């Protein structure tokens, strides 16, 4: 029987984003402040 050298790539059971991405999102959320003045939203990013 012919040998099959190719290996079927199985999709990984859990697809997750990089840890740095999650960390960035959480830090961004902590830094972001939105102030509503009249009809306008002002975004303030604190360092």
């Amino acid at each position: 029987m012919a040998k099959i050298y190719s290996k079927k790539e199985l999709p990984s059971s859990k697809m997750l984003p990089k840890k740095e991405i999650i960390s960035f999102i959480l830090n961004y959320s902590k830094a972001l402040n939105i102030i509503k003045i009249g009809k306008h939203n002002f975004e303030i990013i604190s360092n």
Partner: protein
Amino acid sequence: MATIQIPDALLVKNYIAGDENSLSILINKHQSKIYGFIYSKMPDRDVADDIFQDTFIKVIKTLKSNSYNEEGKFLPWVMRISHNLIVDHFRKNKKMPMLRETEDFSIFSILSDSSPNAECRIITDAIEKDLQKIIQELPDDQKEVLLMRIYQELSFNEIAELTGVSINTALGRMRYALINLRKIIEKNNIVLTN
């Protein structure tokens, strides 16, 4: 140990109220489904990461500006945002196909210029000049009708009126003009082809 599942609506409410940890719980809870959805449409880890990040930036902005009003439907809402961002990504990256010239493939096989080339223009000019010379050989009445019809694009009615003859006479003169043109061309072995 049993874990307590806090409903999304409550987590969203807490997050809006200032509890940053709620966002972390929401992301941990749904990241696999959201990322899997993005990756299924965009099988590139880096692009999928970017879209995941942009999705949550949008989520954060919407929640923090109190514009969110879909209580209890957090996941489908986030999925919709990521779907829209995927569509935007495809739109932005819709490029013209790039073709390289190889030995087997010439770019000129698919590129064409419909305007006549220099040779064609010279031949057309030569034919025009020859034809004008031949027309000068026609009798005046036939020449007049032919010029009015072909070069001035007048109708036979107009030609009849302008030359003061009946429409049938104008038609007859045109017919004889064409017959005589052919005769001159044949007699002088003139080749008029482009």
